C-alpha cells in the first residue's frame, strides 16, 4: 500500500516552510525558503506577497516532496498556518498585489490607533471583536491603505480588489488565482482583523462601518478545519482542509484541547495561549481574547493570548547588530561562561511592550551596568528577558483564569536552548515541557487538515501522538526568584514612558 501524508504549509514572518507528516505525526520532510524583509521607513515592515507565493510554488513545496521522494497524489490534505494580521490586498482579475503586504510588526498606524482609542475608547472594540486597538491588528492597516492609495476604496467597493491575511492570499492562489480562486479565511485569522464579531464569527457591520471597509473585498469566514476545496496547478486535486493563525496552530499542534491547557511558542516574539473552552473569557489583566480553533460545525473554542513582541529577535539583535555572537545558539555558550547576570537586566521594549503592559511609549533599556559586566552577563540578561516576560504573562493568565497553570508546554526555535528552558522553569516555578515535535505550528496545521479529511479520526487520536521529548524542573531558591523578579519589575518601570510622540 502506498504511504500517505499530510502537508503543512507554514507561511511565517521570516520564511515559508512546507513539512510533510506521517500518520504518527512524525516529521518526514522539510522544504524552506526565507523571503525578503522590507523596512522602507522607521517602523515599517513589509513583505512581497508575490515573492512568497513564488517561493512556495517553485522551491518550498517541490523541496519537501523531492526530499522524501513523495508524489503529490500521496498527499491526503493540505493545512496552512500563517503569520497573523499581515495585510494583503490584491487585484481580483490579475492576481497582482496592491503594493507590499504590511506585516504585523509594522507600526505606521500608531497615530491613527492612538486617535481612535482616544475618541472612541477601547470598550466599543472589546465588546465586538475582543481586542483593544493596537497597531498589531489588520483593520487599521486596511484603513491606512485606503487613505494612502489613490482610488483603492472605490476599487474595493466594486469588488475589484480583495483583502486577506496570508492564508487567504495563498489559498486563493493555490485554488486557481484569477481563474476561480477561492477567497476565504478561517475564524482564528479573522479574529485578528478587528473586523469580526468574536461571538457570531461573522463580519461585524458596525466595525466595517467604523473602519469604512467594504464587505465586497472581504473573504468568507470558514472553520479552521474543514475541506475548502481542491488545489489546482501546484498540487492538483489535493484538498485544502485547514487554515489557522500560526499561534493557534501551535495550540492545536500541542494538543491543548482541554480548558486550562496552555502553550508558549518561542520565535521572533513569543506567544502564550491558554484554551478557555467554548466560553469567551474577557481579560482584566492585559491579555487578548481570541478564537483558538473551530473544527467543522462544532462550536468555536476560545483562547486567552499573551503576545510578547521581542524574545528571539533580541537574540538576533545581539548577533546581527551588536555582533557579540556568530549564530543564535552560540548565545548559550557565551551565557554559560558566567555564573549569573552580574546585576544586569535588559528590557527589550524595541517598539513598546505588548502583553501584559501594552505600553507603546516604552523603549528598550539595559540597567545595572557596572565595569564588572562582560559580554557573558549581557548574554544572560538577553536570555533572562525572555524568561521574565513569560513570567509576567503567566501571572496575568493566572489572575484571569480560575485554574492556575500547573505546567507550561513550550515549542519553537528557542526551546533548543537548555539554559533558557531551565531558567524558564526556575522563574515560573513549574515544569516546562517540550514535545517530541518542536515544529508545532506546522504540526497543528497538519493535524487540523488531517482531522477534516479523515486521515486522523478524532482529537483523542491526535493527543496520543503527543510525547514528551524533554522536561525541565524548577530548582531556583524561592528567595532568589523573588529578588530577581523584583529587579526585573524595577527594570521594566525604567523602560516606560521613554518615547514621546
Amino acid at each position: 500500500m502506498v504511504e500517505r501524508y499530510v502537508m503543512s504549509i507554514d507561511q511565517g514572518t521570516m520564511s515559508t516552510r512546507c513539512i510533510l507528516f506521517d500518520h504518527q505525526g512524525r516529521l518526514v520532510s522539510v522544504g524552506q525558503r526565507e523571503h525578503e524583509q522590507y523596512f522602507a521607513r522607521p517602523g515599517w515592515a513589509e513583505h512581497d506577497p508575490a515573492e512568497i507565493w513564488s517561493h512556495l510554488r517553485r522551491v518550498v513545496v517541490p523541496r519537501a516532496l523531492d526530499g522524501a521522494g513523495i508524489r503529490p497524489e500521496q498527499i491526503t490534505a493540505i493545512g496552512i498556518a500563517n503569520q497573523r494580521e499581515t495585510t494583503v490586498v490584491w487585484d481580483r482579475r490579475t492576481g497582482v498585489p496592491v503594493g507590499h503586504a504590511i506585516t504585523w510588526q509594522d507600526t505606521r498606524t500608531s497615530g491613527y490607533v492612538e486617535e481612535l482609542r482616544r475618541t472612541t475608547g477601547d470598550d466599543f472594540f472589546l465588546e465586538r471583536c475582543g481586542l483593544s486597538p493596537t497597531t498589531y491588528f489588520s483593520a487599521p492597516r486596511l484603513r491606512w491603505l485606503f487613505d494612502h492609495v489613490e482610488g483603492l476604496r472605490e476599487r474595493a467597493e466594486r469588488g475589484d480588489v480583495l483583502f486577506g491575511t496570508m492564508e487567504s492570499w495563498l489559498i486563493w492562489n493555490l485554488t486557481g488565482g484569477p481563474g476561480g480562486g477561492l477567497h476565504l479565511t478561517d475564524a482564528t485569522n479573522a479574529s485578528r482583523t478587528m473586523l469580526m464579531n468574536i461571538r457570531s464569527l461573522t463580519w461585524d457591520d458596525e466595525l466595517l462601518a467604523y473602519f469604512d471597509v467594504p464587505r465586497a473585498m472581504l473573504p468568507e469566514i470558514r472553520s479552521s478545519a474543514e475541506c475548502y476545496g481542491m488545489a489546482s496547478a501546484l498540487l492538483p486535486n489535493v484538498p485544502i482542509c485547514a487554515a489557522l493563525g500560526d499561534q493557534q496552530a501551535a495550540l492545536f499542534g500541542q494538543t491543548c484541547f482541554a480548558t486550562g491547557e496552555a502553550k508558549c511558542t518561542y520565535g521572533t516574539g513569543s506567544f502564550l495561549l491558554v484554551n478557555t473552552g467554548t466560553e469567551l473569557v474577557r481579560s482584566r489583566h492585559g491579555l487578548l481574547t481570541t478564537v483558538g480553533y473551530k473544527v467543522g460545525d462544532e462550536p468555536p473554542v476560545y483562547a486567552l493570548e499573551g503576545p510578547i513582541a521581542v524574545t528571539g529577535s533580541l537574540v538576533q539583535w545581539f548577533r546581527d547588530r551588536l555582533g557579540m555572537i556568530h549564530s543564535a545558539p552560540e548565545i548559550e555558550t557565551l551565557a554559560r561562561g558566567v555564573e549569573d547576570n552580574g546585576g544586569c537586566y535588559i528590557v527589550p521594549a524595541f517598539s513598546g511592550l505588548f502583553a501584559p503592559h501594552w505600553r507603546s511609549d516604552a523603549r528598550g533599556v539595559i540597567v545595572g551596568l557596572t565595569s564588572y559586566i562582560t559580554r557573558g552577563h549581557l548574554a544572560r540578561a538577553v536570555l533572562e528577558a525572555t524568561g521574565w516576560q513569560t513570567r509576567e504573562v503567566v501571572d496575568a493568565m493566572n489572575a484571569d483564569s480560575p485554574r492556575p497553570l500547573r505546567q507550561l508546554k513550550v515549542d519553537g526555535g528557542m526551546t533548543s536552548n537548555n539554559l533558557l528552558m531551565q531558567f524558564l522553569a526556575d522563574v515560573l516555578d513549574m515544569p516546562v515541557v517540550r514535545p517530541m515535535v518542536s515544529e508545532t505550528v506546522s504540526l497543528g496545521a497538519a493535524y487540523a487538515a488531517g482531522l477534516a479529511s479523515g486521515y486522523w479520526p478524532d482529537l483523542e487520536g491526535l493527543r496520543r501522538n503527543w510525547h514528551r521529548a524533554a522536561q525541565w524542573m524548577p530548582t531556583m531558591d524561592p528567595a532568589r526568584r523573588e529578588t530577581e523578579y523584583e529587579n526585573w519589575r524595577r527594570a521594566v518601570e525604567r523602560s516606560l514612558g521613554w518615547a514621546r510622540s
Partner: protein
Amino acid sequence: MAGPVQSIERAAAILRLLARGSGRLSLGEVATSLGLAKGTAHGILRTLQSVDFVEQDRATGKYQLGAALLHLGTSYLDINELRSRSINWADALAARSGEAVRLGVPLEGKVLIVHHVFRPDDTFQTLDVGSLLPLHASALGKVLLAYGATPLEPLMETEQESYTRHTLVSPQQLNRALGEVREAGWAAAIQEMMMGEADIAAPIRGQGGLVVGAVGISGAMDRLCDSKGRPQASLVGLTRDAARAISRDLGAARW
C-alpha cells in the same frame, strides 16, 4: 604520484599574506601581492570564507583571517549550534525508533552529552545533557574514536576501565572494534557499560566530511537487538539516516 595542487598552494599563500599584514586587505591587494588574476584570488578567498578561515568585513569588503583559524584543532562547531541544528532529526529518530536519543561530542577523553531526547513513552525521565560517558564503552564514543574526532593514543597505552564482562578493555580489542566501525559506518555497544543495555550510534559530519559528533539511540538490549544479540538492522538504518540528515544540515554535502 600527483604533484602539488596549485589552488591549495595559492590558498596557503593567501593565508600567510593575511596573517602577515597588520590590517585587512582588499581583493585587489591580495591579487597584486601574489600576482594572481582577480578572478582566481576571488574564487580562493570565497572558498576560504566558506570554511571560516577568512572573514570579509561587511562595510569595506576587505578580507582578514577568520576566527576558525584560531581554533584549529579544537572543536570548531559550537555545541549549542549542533543541538539546534539536530533537534528536528533527533526528535524524528526518537519518534521512529521508540528509544531515547543522545548526541555526543568529545571532551577531554570522554563523550559529552550535548542533546538528549526522551524515550517517547511519557515515563518519568531526566535530562542527561552535560553528563559524560566513557569513550571505549559507548557506541557514541566508539564513533568519535573511529573517525578521529578525539585522539585514540591515550586509550592504546593501558587497559581501560571494565564496567561489565563485555567491556572492551584491551587496546587490541578496541582497535579491532574501531576498524569494524569504520568498515560498517556505525557503532554499537552491547552490554559494554551496563548489563541488559545497548546503544547504537553513527557519525555526524560537518563541512568537508570531518566528524564533529555522534548521534545514537540507547535502551534495553532486548528491544535494540535481535534474538542473536545483534543490533536490529531497522534501528541501525534509522540511526544512520538521522546522522546523515544532520550532516547534510551542517553542510557535509556528500553524506
